[in-house]
């Protein structure tokens, strides 16, 4: 790990200012992804701004009938919250499908949104990778791509967004609240938060320099039955090959987003309209633009079958 200086921030805006004041500064909250990457010298910040002392660790009800989740609420606390379990079951299910108990105790709501890809070439500093070292090329497109994106990638990068929590937040229409160094706040719909790689795969989200996530808000409950089905190589503690976050209503309508298959949680509201017509009708639209590699083409039928399983369970 490279050496770095360290400070504890005193307020969200002060944290944003501290991160802005230096080149190559990063926020640290749970640290479970950042420190892993720092040990491998994939991340090499020279200054860390510790945001753990900022509060931001409560879940409050909003005037709109939803929930406002502080950015520092742990994955465990969020999954176990009584209101989340009752009204946003897809979110609890998604969180507990990810990582291990130890990691979920440390990982935070804000940090989890910023989790970086698990592409093996991103992790291997001996290999070209446009996300880690822009301009060096993508090793994955012609390489081992079994776990990587079948849709949404580009000629520059086919990394997948690895998280589960954000996939559930996508079907719930969550919004991300931030503060910048000037104290300005803004709200970013989760649909716009994660970026597709295009020609700049190193730009993974909408955040500007110094901007700090302070909370994630959920709109009022939309009811329905909530599902998160995750297909992976082992039954626990593994990243998704494909995951399906879904809310299914009595009349067969609903919402669906996919994880593990794209550079961001993958949802298309026009495809969703096909839910009463079954999984293949949905996937024909949702994955119409899929460009899988030979190694990951299995993900396209796997996504359809996983949704079919969800819809079948919803009927039964």
């Amino acid at each position, binding site marked *: 790990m490279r050496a770095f200086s360290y400070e504890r921030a005193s307020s969200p805006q002060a944290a944003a200012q501290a991160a802005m004041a230096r080149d190559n500064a990063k926020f640290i909250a*749970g640290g479970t992804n950042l420190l892993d990457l720092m040990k491998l010298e994939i991340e090499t910040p020279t200054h860390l701004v510790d945001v753990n002392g900022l509060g931001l660790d409560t879940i409050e009800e909003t005037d709109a009938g939803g929930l406002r989740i502080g950015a520092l609420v742990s994955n*465990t606390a969020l999954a*176990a919250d009584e209101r989340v379990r009752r009204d946003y079951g897809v979110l609890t299910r998604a969180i507990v499908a990810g990582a291990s*108990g*130890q990691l979920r105790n440390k990982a935070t709501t804000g940090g989890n949104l910023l989790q970086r890809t698990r592409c093996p070439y991103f992790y291997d500093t001996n290999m070209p990778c446009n996300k880690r070292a822009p301009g060096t090329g993508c090793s994955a497109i012609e390489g081992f791509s079994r776990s990587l994106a079948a849709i949404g990638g580009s000629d520059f990068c086919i990394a997948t967004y690895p998280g589960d929590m954000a996939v559930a937040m996508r079907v719930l229409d969550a919004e991300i609240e931030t503060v910048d160094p000037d104290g300005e706040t803004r709200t970013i719909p989760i649909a716009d938060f994660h970026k597709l790689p295009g020609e700049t795969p190193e730009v993974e989200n909408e955040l500007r320099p110094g901007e700090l996530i302070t909370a994630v808000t959920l709109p009022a409950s939309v009811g329905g039955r909530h599902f998160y089905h995750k297909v992976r190589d082992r039954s626990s503690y593994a990243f998704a090959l494909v995951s399906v976050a879904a809310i299914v209503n009595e009349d067969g309508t609903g919402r669906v987003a996919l994880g593990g298959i794209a550079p961001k949680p993958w949802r298309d509201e026009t495809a969703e309209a096909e839910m009463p017509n079954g999984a293949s009708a949905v996937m024909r639209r949702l994955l119409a633009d899929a460009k899988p590699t030979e190694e990951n083409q299995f993900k396209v039928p796997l996504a359809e079958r996983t949704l079919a399983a969800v819809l079948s369970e919803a009927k039964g």
Partner: protein
Amino acid sequence: MKREHNGGITRRDLMIVGAATAATYAFPKVAYGQANVEAPASGEALKALDASLKSEVSFTVNGTARDIAVDNRTTLLDALRETLQLTGTKKGCDHGQCGACTVSVNGRRINSCLTLAVMHQDDEITSIEGLGTPDDLHPMQAAFIEHDGYQCGYCTPGQICSAKATLEEIRAGIPSHVTADITGPIEASDDEIRERMSGNICRCGAYSNILAAIKDVKGQNA
């Protein structure tokens, strides 16, 4: 290359030397503050640089107050093992994948390898040494011995810390991936225990005996 000499060494020299032989130099190889890379590394500047890379932190470990000064890079795991000589907590993968380093911080189990010591000001840390002693074993330690829940023993401190937390998390109603009804009470079934222990890897494969040990302790508490 033009070099400004100040005390015989410039920061650029330091970086070059540091990059080649990082292990033998106390100074970091990092370019600290990109704008200042060319600044001469005077004695004072070096002292300030060095000081900025270390921090003091105070926390309690197994009930004892500890004040330590560490390089900012020091993980909680390394602080426990190297700084405080509490070597019960083990370093396995050092990347949060194996669970050998599991300790409790403020009542929640975490991977001590994936957190910095300086991030734990005022925290209460419990390592395997804080659970029991050879003469007064924690019930989970006794159960691991009774059920032969290990072979080489390297992952065992992490397994025991995690096992204790697993039963506490079930009692606290925290749902898991295998919980059928996430709105209801949770039964400490074999599947629940297995799922919750999936962050602790045992290369010897003592899993069935670890499960038996945890079930034994669950029964004692019931």
